[in-house]
């Protein structure tokens, strides 16, 4: 017996250590975090209450990291909102284009504006579609809103558009409500001008102006713009009519090329007549 006691005293640290380890392992094997009963529940409840009581003490480190996290979240959400807004605008525009495509009188080829150029009051657009898609010189270009211009040159994959904002362009037009004809021109201002409208004719602000039946360069009834101002021109028999164009050159991004080629026989006849007139004048 004494030997046993001596053994225990001699190795008391190891025996105690082994015993405590066994107890710990037994506790671990019995322990279930989800069941908070007895003393533990009381202790955790008390600690929780105290934590709540001391929660008013500011922690600069935690506040700083929280602030940083909130700022990062704010930045991400801001970027997300911008993307969503852009998608909304794009969605609206594409929807309008799809609707237009369904209603178009002519076969159209959709194209994207990949370049814009302005030289001496001549605005041109470069499109990412060309001869491969069947685009040729003379075809009209429009957006879902209205007339944009005419193809003046094309390569296999690109086309050049002479926009209606060009000092050389003259468009035979008519007022939709009354059918009164005139000539649309651009003189470098914000608005287009509708010329040759006599002061005795019925013209109102808000009237829509379309390409007329007399034009052979553009298809008929393509919207151009809406009348914004009608001014009397002293000493003239005609109004000075200003049209707000439906197409905005600075924001134009997507267009349709209308597979409309002017009638060559008609063009030839006009050309022949004009040459005769010039010949008569020379005589």
């Amino acid at each position: 017996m004494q030997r046993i006691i001596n053994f225990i005293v001699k190795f008391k640290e190891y025996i105690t250590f082994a015993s405590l380890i066994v107890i710990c392992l037994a506790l671990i094997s019995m322990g279930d975090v989800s069941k908070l009963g007895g003393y533990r529940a009381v202790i955790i409840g008390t600690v929780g209450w105290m934590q709540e009581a001391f929660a008013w003490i500011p922690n600069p480190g935690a506040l700083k990291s929280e602030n940083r996290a909130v700022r990062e979240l704010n930045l991400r959400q801001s970027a997300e909102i911008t993307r969503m807004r852009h998608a909304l605008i794009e969605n609206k525009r594409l929807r309008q284009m799809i609707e237009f495509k369904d209603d178009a009188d002519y076969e159209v080829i959709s194209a994207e504006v990949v370049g814009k150029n302005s030289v001496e009051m001549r605005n041109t657009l470069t499109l990412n579609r060309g001869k491969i898609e069947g685009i040729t010189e003379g075809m009209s270009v429009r957006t879902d809103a209205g007339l944009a211009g005419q193809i003046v040159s094309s390569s296999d994959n690109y086309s050049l558009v002479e926009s209606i904002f060009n000092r050389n362009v003259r468009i035979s037009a008519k007022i939709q409500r009354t059918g009164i004809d005139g000539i649309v021109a651009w003189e470098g201002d914000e608005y287009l001008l509708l010329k040759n409208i006599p002061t005795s004719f019925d013209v109102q602000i808000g009237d829509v102006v379309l390409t007329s039946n007399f034009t052979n360069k553009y298809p008929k009834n393509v919207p151009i713009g809406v009348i914004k101002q009608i001014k009397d021109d002293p000493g003239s028999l005609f109004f000075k009519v200003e049209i707000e164009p439906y197409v905005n050159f600075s924001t134009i991004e997507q267009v349709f090329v209308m597979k409309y080629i002017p009638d060559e026989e008609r063009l030839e006849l006009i050309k022949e007549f004009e040459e005769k007139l010039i010949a008569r004048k020379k005589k």
Partner: protein
Amino acid sequence: MFPYLDQLNTGKKSKGLTYVVYTLVALILSLANALFIEFIEIGGLTPDLLLILVVWIALSEGQFVGLFFGFGIGLLFDMTSHDVIGTNALAKTVVAFIAGYFYKEGKQDQTIGSVRFLITVFLASLFHNIIYFFFYIKVSEMDYWALFTEYGLAISLYTTIMSIFAMLLMIPRREINR
């Protein structure tokens, strides 16, 4: 951790009272751990103040007494935290057992008031974290060595750094005893 504890050890007061003081310190540190540890949190890492206390006790009182305090303090920590009961008790019992080997009777001041204390804390903390993370991994099914390298080592280092304050508390006593 408190200089007057050594006065208690020298026989001026009973050993019993010393143990009561250890218990009170353990309770205070447990509460501080639960309430204010976030104030010294660095990158999600917190030092184990109770481990420093266990090492202190083991180095002051020896392996046998240290074992009981290690077990008790670990159990207290398990209760105040959401850990599985027994994990911290086991880890801190092992800590006391290891730290007990560095106990030198009559030379407690020199041991705790020197770099040896820091080395003991670091080694003990490493063993503590090896055991503790083993049970932690069992629950979370994470990569053990990755977690230990990322957190276990860092926590051991942070705990060792914090133990410098405990060591500094003992240095004046050591100088007086010389």
